[in-house]
């Protein structure tokens, strides 16, 4: 992102780096970069405000930001938001845990075992072409509309990116690393723990982030289609009762939650892969 900074800012950062050490200079850069990242959302918010107050769109379809934030406050005060977010997050936690764990195990298995890879790779390559939402009608047929269907739907969505990235990461471990370890006559578990997993870690963590992001989107999808609670269901009910402000509160909460979840995983990713830099 440094290329976005004007020349004098880079000079100033370089000077600060020279004078006060790496940490402070990085902070200045990060703060500037984050401020730049706020510009577009702020412009969008201003455009939303202008468009809605000038009634360029029907105010029933696009309520002004103030009304949406008042509704958000009402929903927080009444406990409606917390209750439904809790339900959605619980669903996503269970589905993601099951999907990501199974995906990791399958990816590792395929990465290590050439025979398993030969058997399973074509299936995975076909399965990845099917958008998870396309499974929705079939899963409802099989499991009904209750929690089991939602958890399986989310797990299925979380499994595929996790398995593929784990498999990709393990296949990408340089053969020379493995040779060196074999020279020392390490057992398979040590090989996995000391060489393969650390080397494949960036890819596995990328899979984890993708998997969580997919899981969060799918819980909303499942709740929009068949649910009696959860943030997706709140949006469905609000749409049916012509409460556009509540629908927009739902959109904002989904975006913020997704952003927070991804940021936490990005932080974990940075911490765990620091040694590679």
């Amino acid at each position, binding site marked *: 992102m440094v290329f976005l900074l004007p020349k004098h800012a880079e000079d100033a950062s370089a000077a600060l780096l020279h004078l006060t050490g790496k940490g402070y200079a990085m902070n200045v850069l990060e703060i500037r970069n984050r401020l730049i990242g706020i510009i577009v959302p702020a412009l969008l918010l201003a455009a939303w405000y202008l468009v809605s107050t000038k009634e360029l769109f029907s105010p029933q379809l696009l309520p002004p930001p103030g009304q949406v934030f008042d509704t958000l406050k009402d929903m927080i005060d009444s406990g409606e938001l917390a209750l439904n977010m809790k339900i959605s997050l619980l669903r996503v936690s269970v589905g993601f845990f099951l999907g990501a764990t199974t995906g990791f195990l399958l990816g590792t298995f395929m990465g290590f075992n050439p025979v398993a890879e030969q058997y399973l790779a074509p299936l995975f390559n076909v399965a990845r072409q099917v958008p998870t939402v396309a499974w929705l009608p079939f899963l409802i047929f099989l499991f009904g509309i209750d929690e089991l269907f939602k958890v399986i739907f989310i797990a299925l969505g979380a499994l595929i990116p996790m398995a593929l990235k784990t498999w990709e990461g393990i296949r990408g471990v340089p053969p020379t690393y493995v040779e060196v370890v074999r020279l020392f006559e390490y057992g398979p578990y040590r090989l996995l723990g000391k060489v393969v997993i650390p080397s494949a870690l960036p890819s596995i963590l990328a899979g984890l982030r993708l998997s969580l992001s997919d899981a969060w989107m799918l819980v909303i999808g499942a709740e929009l289609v068949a649910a009696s609670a959860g943030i997706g269901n709140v949006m*469905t009910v609000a749409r049916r009762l*012509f409460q556009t402000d509540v629908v927009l509160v739902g959109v904002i909460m989904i975006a913020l939650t997704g952003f927070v979840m991804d940021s936490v995983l990005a932080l974990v990713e940075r911490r765990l892969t620091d040694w590679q830099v």
Partner: protein
Amino acid sequence: MKIYQKIMLPLFSLFILLYAMSVMAAEKPLYIRIGIPSSSYNKPLASGPLGEIQVKELFDEEFKKDGIRLDVQYMQAAGPAVNEALSNGNLDFGSIGDLPAVAGYAGGLKTRAVVASRGGNTYVVVPSDSQIRSIKELKGKQIAISIGTYMHAAALKILKDNGLSENDVSFYNMDSATLLTAVAGKQVEAAFMTSDAITLRTRGVARIIYTTGGKNVYYQNAGALLVRDEFARKYPDITRRFVKVWVKASYLHSKDKLASQKLDTRVGTPLSTIREDQAGQPIVYLNSPKFDEMWLAHDRRSIALFKQHGLIRRSFDPDKGWIDRSFLNAALKELNLEHFWPDYDINGNPKK
């Protein structure tokens, strides 16, 4: 003079042309677009007064000379979808139930209620082998319903009478066609639905545990024909004439109960279902277009209940700004039907 001829004259002509075009555009639309909830059988046909308009070509009788055509849109997602289409200007009129009509207006949708409608029953069904026998036993159960429709309104009232609320059950939103499949396939433990319940019972897949049939009119639907306010302001005369066509159709649909019921089978509902659903209700009552004491009392009580349960954010008096009787009164006078339909009291009985 040359400048005048070269610039001013064409500009003036253009202005006159544009003005003439705008006047012509304001005088009449090409289409009158009306939205209604689609039947569970998804047939592109209407029942009730609109069915009468289609079968007897009443619209063409009034508007053919103007070159205006009728565009009927059958909304699978029912009244709430009609509201959305009215909001984004894709419809001019909508004939919908009490909850969607009220929720739309309370949510800021600029409509006018121009003709009253009434009489839709709500049924509570369970799969035929279910152990559930009463409304009280629905506590904690998975229930299919079309959220935001008149059945949702009735559900609120029925649950309340039995000491329950929406929070005591799990409502799953479904359109009417999906709801039929969900009950037949036992994907839900119960459903609040239209008279399609009778058809399901006849097929042996469901048992009816409750009906609003024979109960106080408060539990039935009291919807309305709505017009988009902008359309009514732009085309007041077209609106008046369309309401006249609707009232004439309501009159024809009020004359012979069996003939009207037979006409209504065109959407796919069996005659036996319609007859059982409308048993004990005079056809004149079912087709009355008047905003009488019964309709107003029903709507006011319902609005208070919807507000109390958070289905609408603001309360309002339907008779202060929403109901516009001018088109209806003009139609009744023109068709000499001012005294054809009696005014009904709060319990649905004709006033003396």
